Each structure stands twice: as C-alpha cells, then as structure tokens.
C-alpha cells in the first residue's frame, strides 16, 4: 500500500518536474577542419610565366625586361591566323544572321497573310536558331581571348596578351617575330608581393591533407582564403609538424612577413556519423552514456526515491533492473568524432530518440537513491 502511494506520487511529480527535451539522432559530417598555426612568408622564386593562349607570330612587345607592370597591362601583340579565322567567321555569320532574320520577318508577314505555309516559317526559324547558337559559341571563345565582339566590324589577326597580375618582367622568353604555339611561355613575371602561408600541421593529420585543400586565415574579421599548393616532404625539425605552403593571392596590408597567424585547414574527406548534441552526453559509471526515453515509461514507473521497493532490486544485476524499470534507458556510447555542437557516437542508431539536453537531471534521478543525506 505504502509502495503504491509512493509510486503514484513519483509519477505525479515526474509530470510537473523539469521538462526533459528529446531529439532524434541524425547523421552528421565530422572532421571537417583543424585549427593550426601559420606563418606568413615570402618566397624568393615566386616567378610566373605569361603564356600564349593561341598560336601565332610575335608582332610586338609592349614591355621590356625589368619593367614593372600591373595587372591588365598590355604585354605582347600577336599576329594569329587562328584569330583572323575566328573573327572572319564571326563577322560572316553575323551578316548571315541578319539576312536570315530579314527572311524570317518577311516570311512571317506572308504567313500572316496566308501566303506561305507554317512549315517553311519553321524551317526559317530553325535556321535562325542554329546561327544564333554558333554565334554565341564563337563570341564566348573570343571573349576568353579578351577580344570584344561588340565593336568587331572586320576580321583581324591581331591579338593582345595582357598581364594577369602585378609584377616585374624578369625575362622575355621568345624573340620578336618568332612563331609561338598554344601554352608557350612568352615572358616570365616575378610577383612583387608573393605572400605564402607556411602552416604547421600535426603529424596526426598526415593522411588527410592534400594539395588544393582550403586554408583560411582570419585577419581582424577579414577572412582570407588560400589553397594548399605544396606539402613539403620534410617535417619541421623543431615542431615535428608537417609544413604546408599556400599562396595568398589577395593583397592586404595586414600581412606581415614572419608573423604567426592562427589558421583553419579544411579537409574534404569529412565522414558521417550518427550524432547527438554535446549537451546530451553524460559520464555515468565510468562510461559515456546518453539517455533514451522509454515508451512504456508511464505504465511502469520505478520508485527510485524510496528505499524499500528499491532494496529488493539491489542485487548484483542491479543495473539491468534499473534500466528495465526506469523511465530512461541508459545507453553506453563510444565517442568517435566531435565538433562544437555535435558528438559522433557509436552505439546509437540513426533516428533513435535521445535526451538532447538536461541529461544532468536524468542522471540525478537515477542516482538520487544512493545520494544519502550526507554532503560531507
């Protein structure tokens, strides 16, 4: 009888006690990034070549060796058959298009008056679309070669290569009037401000880092992005860390050579794990656990708060009993990954409902019976 009253009161008080939030376990990606230390350096041999994009014949150099140039400055004038072909074709097709357009309009009028068939109108329309497509393809090809098609009235074989970045012309590689093919270096350009980041990555990440991965630094709120260009074969002797190089393309006054900056390296092989919120985790009897609400909890309420009923279960297999009868199941989990808000765990299935926060209170209720009246 006594037990029944206790049972009912426990049930009652659990109802208007603390709200225990629950959530369903979801799959999350982990291992996305690592914070490391980077040093700003400048490499002495940061030279680049300006390449020819088309084959042709060098007509004129706008620059001399040792000259300081800026991005967008003219470097060389090429005489190119390919260019002249392309421009000629562009112009002829443009003309063709305007005549097709005229025809089409005339046919349209005729069709309206009932003097021609719809079939011939359609034929004309298809021809027009074909021409338009060809034209836009050509237009974009020319655009990549920095040739503006809007003002193009007649075919030209002249092609100007512009500087793609600031720097100093180190050397002119091809003699004047010589012919060059596609991808032939024409001049070498040394960057004036070639900032690189030398980042020190703990050996533990050796298997994850790859060339091309993103590395960011935060300079007073301004995020500067760079990409790993080189992984040095030797680790830093002193720090025993892998050294990564990445170039900083963006020009900023905030970068000082030799300064150390905190940086974040992003890996692209993030793994997915079943994740729970960090606030769900609790350390219980030497193991990490999460608490899972039980559906039948309301039928079978375990009276943790009074001793008598409890004592009967106080046997060696005490834990199992408690788990069977308590409102919450204690699930031991293994931490496999974590980030700021989530913990990747093993031992929990995706979609399972778990106590997502205030796990402290659940643990309290489970342990309360053994608290005793002594704080000392």
């Amino acid at each position, binding site marked *: 009888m006594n037990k029944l009253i206790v049972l009912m009161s426990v049930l009652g008080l659990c109802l208007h006690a603390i709200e225990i939030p629950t959530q369903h376990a979801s799959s999350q990606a982990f291992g996305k990034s690592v914070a490391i230390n980077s040093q700003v350096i400048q490499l002495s041999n940061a030279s680049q070549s300006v390449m020819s994009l088309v084959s042709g014949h060098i007509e004129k150099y706008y620059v001399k060796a040792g000259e300081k140039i800026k991005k967008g400055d003219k470097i060389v004038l090429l005489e190119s058959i390919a260019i002249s072909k392309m421009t000629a074709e562009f112009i002829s097709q443009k003309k063709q298009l305007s005549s097709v357009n005229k025809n089409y309009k005339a046919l349209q009028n005729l069709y309206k008056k009932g003097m021609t068939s719809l079939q011939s109108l359609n034929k004309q329309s298809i021809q027009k679309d074909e021409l338009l497509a060809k034209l836009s393809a050509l237009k974009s090809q020319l655009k990549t070669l920095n040739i503006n098609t809007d003002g193009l009235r007649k075919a030209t074989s002249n092609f100007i290569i512009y500087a793609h970045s600031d720097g100093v012309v180190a050397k002119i590689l091809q003699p004047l009037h010589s012919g060059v093919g596609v991808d032939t270096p024409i001049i070498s350009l040394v960057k004036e401000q070639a900032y690189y980041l030398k980042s020190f990555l703990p050996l533990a990440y050796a298997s994850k880092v790859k060339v091309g991965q993103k590395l960011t630094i935060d300079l007073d709120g301004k995020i500067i992005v760079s990409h790993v260009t080189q992984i040095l074969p030797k680790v830093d002797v002193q720090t025993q860390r892998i050294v990564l190089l990445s170039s900083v393309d963006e020009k900023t006054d905030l970068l000082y050579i030799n300064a150390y900056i905190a940086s974040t390296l992003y890996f692209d092989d993030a793994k997915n794990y079943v994740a729970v919120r960090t606030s769900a985790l609790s350390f219980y009897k030497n193991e990490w656990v999460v608490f899972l609400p039980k559906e039948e909890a309301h039928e079978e309420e375990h009276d943790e708060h009074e*001793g008598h009923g409890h004592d009967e279960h106080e046997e060696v297999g005490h834990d199992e009993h408690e788990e069977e009868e308590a409102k919450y199941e204690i699930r031991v989990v293994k931490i496999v990954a974590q980030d700021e808000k989530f913990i990747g765990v093993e031992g929990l299935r995706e979609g399972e409902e778990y106590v997502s926060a205030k796990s402290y209170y659940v643990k309290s*209720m489970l*342990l*309360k019976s*053994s608290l005793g009246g002594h704080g*000392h």
Partner: protein
Amino acid sequence: MLGYLIDSALKYKLLVITLFLVIAAFGFKAYKEIPVDAFPDITPKQVVIYTESPGNSAEDIEKLITYPIESAVSGMAGVKLIMSNSIFGLSYVSIFFEDDMDIYFLRQLVSERLGSVAIPSGWGKPLLGPNTTGLGQVFWYELKDTTNTYSLREIREMQEYIVTPLFKSVSGVEEVVGWGGFLKQYNVLIDTKKLQNIGVTYQDIIDALQKSNKAAGGQYLEFNREQYLIRGAGLYKSLDDIRHTVIKSGKGHSVTIGDVASVEVGSAPRFGSISIDGKEAVLGMVLQRTATNAAKVVDRLKEKLSTVESALPEGVVIRTIYDRTEITLKAVDTMTAALISGIILVAIVLFLFLFELRSAFIVIISLPLSLLIAFLLMDYYGVSANLMSLSGLAIAVGMIVDGTIVIVENSFRKLHENPTKPKVEVIAQAAKEVATPVTFAVLIIAAVFIPLLSLDGLAGKLYGPMALNIVFVMLGSLGVALILVPVLSVLLLKPSSSKENFVMKGIKKIYTPFLLFALGHAKLVLASVSVVFVVLAYILSLQGREFMPELNEESIMYRVIAIPGTGLEHSTKTAGDVEKYILKNYANEVSSVLSMIGRSENGETAQANYMEVLLTLKPDIEDLPALTRKMNKDLKQAFTFINFVPTQPISMRIEELLEGVKAELAIKIYGDDQKVLDSISKDIQAVLGSVDGLEEMEVETQLGQAQIKIEPDYLALARYGISVEEVMNVIRNGLGEEQVSEKIEGVRRFGIVAKIKGAKNDIESVKAITIRASNGSLVSLDQICTIEIRQGASFIKRENLSRYMVLSMDVQGRDIASFVEESDALIKEKVNIPDGYYIGWAGDFKNMKAATDKLMVIIPITIFFIILLLYTAFNSLSKSMLILLNVPFGFIGGIIALVVSGIYLSVSAIIGFLAIFAIAILNGIVLVSFIDELREKFPNVALKIVLKDATLLRLRPVLMTAFTTLFGILPLLYATGVGSEIQYPLSVVITGGIISSTLLTLLILPSTYLLFYEKNHDAGVKGK
C-alpha cells in the same frame, strides 16, 4: 558532627545570616556572569588538520597528504579516534582525544607531530583548524551593497580586508570565515600558440613572473652627516608592470609577458558560493573560540558593528542572518520561566499545606538561596548556563525544599509540643533529630545523579552539566537546611497550635480507609503491585528508543544534496531556484532564504554538490511543525533531482559530530578498495532487504566524480625532450591556476596565475593544449599524455587509518537492538566479506547503546552505594532494602506516563527514572525513619497501629515533599519554548513517577514494613 554544626550555627546567628547574605550577593554576581549558551559544549576534544591542495583529486590527496598526516598523529597519547576525509582539493583529518586533556596542549602536540610529515612540495601545507567548538558559528552576516555599485569580487575583498580584521580583533573570536563572491586574482592568460612564435616555453613564463616582483633592502649611505636608506622597490605596481616583465632577451630587444599573454583582473577558482533570495552574495561567519561565552562574543561583535560599518564604503552594510544569542536567549528564557513558575508553584503548595506564613517563608527563602549557591558553584567550576544545566535546576526545584521542609516541620511540631522550653534548645533538638535523615536523603539524591557524570561522549556532555547542577543545588539546599534554617526558625517561628487545615483534613479522610485496607491485605496488595510492575517493565522494553529528542530551534534549514560531481555554478543556480520557489510559495512565512553552496575557502569538507539552505522566518508563525512538513513535501515535489534533508542549525552541527553518521543506525564497512566496499554494501543490502522493520536503506556513494586523467607517456616525452615536471606544471599552473607570484597592494595580497587561454572550454581543449619544449619541440598535450575520462572517488573517508563506507538505515516499529542482532547474524551467515574487510555498527543507536551499557554498570554500583548510605543511616540492611523496594513502585507511574504519551525511551527519559529513584527513596526515608521513631516511643503498641498512626502523622511531610517536587517539575511539562522538547520526556516520566511513588509509598510501604517486621515486633511486644 551535624549536631555541632547546628549548635554553632545557632550560637553565631548574626554571623550565619551575614554569611548567607554574602553568599547570596556573590551568587547573584555569578548568576550575572555565568557564560550563557543555548547548548552545552558537546564538541569532543578534537584537533582538526586541514591541508588545502588546490586542484588535486581525492585519490591523490589521500595518498600524498592524508595518509602521511594520519600516520604521523596516530599513536599519540590520548588519541581516541582519527577520522579523515579526502575530497577534491582538501585533506581533512580530525583527531579525537580523551576529554580530560587540555586543548592547547593537544594542539601543540599535534603541530609538533606535523613537523615530521613530509608532503611533496606544491601539495599544500597542513594547518590546524580553528580552535573552536562544533557549535562555534555564533554570528552570520551578509555583506550587502545596498547601492548596487560594487561587484561581488569587490564586496568579497571588503570582507577579507576590512571586516575580517576588525571582527578578528574582538575578544573571543577565533576566526572569521568569508564565503561567496569571488576572490580577486591577476590572470596572465597565455596563448600557447604564441610560444612557437617567440621561442619560449611555458616554464620560462613562470620563471619570469617569479623572478620579477621583488623587493630588496640596500642598507644605507651617509651623505652630509645624514643617513639615507636604500631600498629596491621592484614589486609589481600595475598590470603594465606585469606585461613588461622580460621572459627572454634577444639582441637589442626583449620578449615580454605582454607578447605571449594578456594580463587582466580575474577571479580565483572557487569551491563554494552563497546565494541569498535568488542572488549571489557574500557571507561572513564568525567562529567563537573554545570556552568563551557565545552571548558575550556576539554582544562584543555587535558593539563593533558601527566601527565596521563606518570603515565600509557608503551603502555597504552588514545584515545579520543568524545570531546565536537569539536561540540562546529563547532557550534560557524557556528554562528560566520554568524555574520561576516552579518556584511560585512550590510556594503556593507549601502555603496550602502549612497554612502558616512564618514557616512557609523560611522554606521559600531556602529556594533562591540554594539556587544562588548553585550558581556560585557553576561559576567556580565553569559550567555554562544553558538549556541542559538550567533544566537541572528546574528539575531540582521541588527537591530543594525537601530538607528545609523536614527541619521546619519538625521544629514547628517540637515548639508546639514544648512551649515552655527555650526556643533555641527546642529547635536545636528538633534539627538534630532530623539532621541525619535529611543529610542522607540529600546525599542519596545527589548520588542518584552522579552516574550521569560518568557518561562520556555526547551523552556525558549533554547530561553531565544537568547532573552536576542537580548535585550543586542539592548540596546548596543541604547547607541552607542545616545552617540557615535552624537560625531562621529560632528567629521567626512562634509556638502555635499546629491545627490541621482543611486540605490535610480532606486528604486524610479519603486516605485512611485505603491505608487500613492495604495494611489488612498486605500480601495481596504487594503481590498485585509486583505483577503490575513486571508487566509494565516488559512493556517498557518494547518501547521505541532514541538518543535525544529533536531540538526545536524555531528555524528551518535544509541540507540539499545533488549528485556527486555536480558543478558549482549549476548548484548555485539550483540554490537560487530553490530560494525563489520558497519565497514565492511561502511569502507569508519566510522573509529571506540563504544558501551556502559547497564550502568556504578554508577547512570544510563539503563539495559543490552540497548545499545548506537556511530560512529566515517571519515572526509569529503559528504552527511551525506543520509548516515544516508542508514545505518538506513541496520542495521534494518541485525539485525531484535533488535530496532535501530537513534539519536545524544547531541540530545539524550535532549530527555532524555524531561520528559523521547522522542516521539512527548505520553499518560502516571498512576496507581498502572502494569498489569492493561498494559490492559488499550491495550484498548487505540484498541480505537485509527482507529483515523485518527496515524502512529505508541508503548507501553513501563515494564514487561518481568524473575525472580527466592526464597520464604522461614517458616514451613520448623522451621523443620530444619534455620532462614530466613541465607537464605537471602546465597542469598545476596553467589549468589549476596555482599562483606563481603575488601582487601586493598595501597589505592586500592577490595571486598572479599563469593561465592557459581557452584551455578549459571543454575536454577537447584540454587535449589541444600546446606545450613547447626548451629545444623548440611543439606538441599538444594529447601527443605526450594519455588523456582519459574516468569515474573516480568524489571523496574518501577513513577512520583509524582504514577506508570505510557508510550504509545507513531507518528502522521502524521494532527494537533496534534486536534488529541489529538479527541483521548481524544474517550478514555473518550470508555475506562473504573478503579478508581485510570488516563491518561495524554505528549511528545514533551506538551512542544510545554506549550510554545504556555504561549505565548498566554504573547504576548497580550507585545502587550499592545508596544501600550503603541507607545502611549507615538506619543501621539495618532490611530497612535499606525496604526503602529500595519503593523504587519499582515509583517506576510504575513513570512507565505508564511514558507509554501513554507515546514518547520514546531516550536518555532524557532515563534521567526521569533516575529522579524517580531519588524521590521514591526520599519518600521511603521520611516515612521509615518516623515509623522507627514511633516504634521506639511506643514499643508496646501493635505494629499495625504504630504504622497507621505514623503514616497518618507523616502524611503531611510526605505529601509536601512529593507535591513540591511535582509542582516544581510541572512547568517543564507544559513549557513550549525553544528547548522544552528536550526535557519533555523527563518531566513526563517524573510526573507519573511522583504520583505513583507517593501513592504507593503511602499504601505499600506500611504494608511491606508490616510484612518485614510484624513477627519480630509483635514478638517483642508479647515478650514484654
């Protein structure tokens, strides 16, 4: 000898009166000066050693601090028990000594022994705890900023540097404990990522901090005949000084602290906090020195208050939260009221019986005089006026007058019988006649209470002063009766016819037929009373027992316990919620709620999961017990995740003194491995679950504290060239915030700590701490250490050098002794206890048992002693036995009263029985000695008639002594104030006992006498 005394007194009447006037004056002075306290000092002779070892775990503290201390102090002379508790950051060793040793001597001995204890450097220094008693916290106050301008840190600083020194200068104050708020410190927040940048190690930074911040004296120089002192003042003055401290010098420039760290004002890690009415606050607690007067200490503190407040900034005030004098005054008031109303009642009874003002006056005057003599003796022997000692006086009030009554009555009768003889002669004669029985009666009363003095432990400390006071006042009354009363009788009494008044006439009319019947059926009456006694004695053995009735302190307090490992900030928040809940739901009854969370910075063993919640109640609450019950229930429902244990401020301290076990009954399981202890406790629980009467069983979990264990990997360390010490220094200083230097501001000192920035955000950030070796290697902590999370001990308790675990239980509806017997047998039979492990029973029950066991030895000795006294008085063994036979008759009423009012058998009740013992014997002596006197006078009259006449003649003094005792004790029965509940069982027993003892003495003693001496006497009559 007594005759000589009386003769001399009568010869020097003036001298005697002057003597007693002087005694009265000094007694009154003593009464005013006696230390007043609510409770006797029940603290055992105890020296506490506490060692603060910040940041260290219970296991390490036990191993490296507690055990060495324990071994050093064990084997000291007079050590009774060594108990210890190792918790996170603190080792607490308590040594209990024999009570008769001098505390200052013991403290000295202990500190000598401490000198030989080797504790690793950096692990703290053992200190002796304050020399105070368990009830030493006499005054609690809140340091309150009414203007909301100061931060908690600033208020705490005021507490430490303004209030504490001022209060400490008050005489009788041993210690002022500050609690709550934050302690200021200077944080040097090191960004370990920068260590690589500038090429220094963590250790370099610490060394740099320690090498700076110095002062030096440079002697003097003489210049122009004058002396100029030289001093180097290199102590840090500002935060910039810290920032500019050089760590490493390069070419033309230096690396300074400011390059690797930010320097800021911060707060030291804390172990406790205070919350008042839902807000954090700063509390101060004044500890009184051992053997000082609590009331006076508090008075002096209050005098100092105005000075303290004027020293504090405007708007910061001291608000009293708990003041021991309040309950002290209430308790003393209860007892004084009982005493005064007892005196008045006794006076009324005397007048009703005597119906003569002069004799009544003499008797009544003896009352205050005896009390004043008692106060004089109390003062001399250093007994404080408290609940227990004053109640001794209250109990004795009715008995004080007994001796005087007998002498006055006899003198009065003799004067009446011999109107012509000189008054002095008649009275001297009368006094001498009764002097011997009176002396013996008083001595017997005193003797009856002496066993209480021999009790040790808590019972002895509680009831010793009471017994002592009864002895004092009885001796006082004897002096008054033998010396002053004859003198006063000569001066005041007038021979007049002792006409019986209507009261006595009425009583006699009713009494005579009963007496005649009893004398007629002596055997039958005796047999039936004996049967009744045996039955009642059996019923008594079934009665529930308790050590001490619960003291009503007119206050409500809770111990609140959350699960082990609960964080302080969470506990503080919970406490705030509890406070708000109480204030909201009990707005009419509660004016303020205070929570003490964790522990203050020194010397207590509470952890962050432990809170004490004290309610300040509004005045005039009608039904406090009902309110308490309702609140208990409400709180338990509203806060399901914590345990509430209702208690009261003084009771709580007493509970703590009960060997650390507050339950009525507990099993202590001793042994080394906590896990084995745990499993034994589980086995015991399983076995005892089925034992009858067990209501509740609780284990005190010692495990449950999650730990991040950082274990250095020696191989990895070798790889990077880092020493273990460096790693441990990073943990101790960088994480543990141990101060590396001190910033001195005037006399105020604040620690400078080299904290690692962002290292305590979460577990991962601990792993990621960067360490730089001196050769430049840069590693994170988890590269060189195995870092694991595991469950460790939240505390480790030890007793006499062995770990133990407590399993406490609540037994209802059956006698505890038999429960223990049955359970003990069951455990022995069914639980397998491994070698090196053993169990012991403890708890309140043990105190009760210790007290009972001791009494079982001492009471027979006392009885023997009393028989000896009786034998000396009557010169007859059979008469002594005859008088002793009265005792069971007295017990009958006591037992009936106890059972009817449903009170447990406590030490208090046992003392009631002792008092009955005395009263019964007193009644017997008065009657038997008179019967003897009559028999001598009229040797030829049949014994039955002699008995009848003697009893009727002696009815008045017997009834008078009985009624004065009864009415003396009545106020205690009806008292309701603070402390009354402790004396309630006692007064119930005595009231019942007096009634039955008196009735049965008057009926059965004559019958027994008849049975004992009928043949003998009547043979003598016939022979003549």
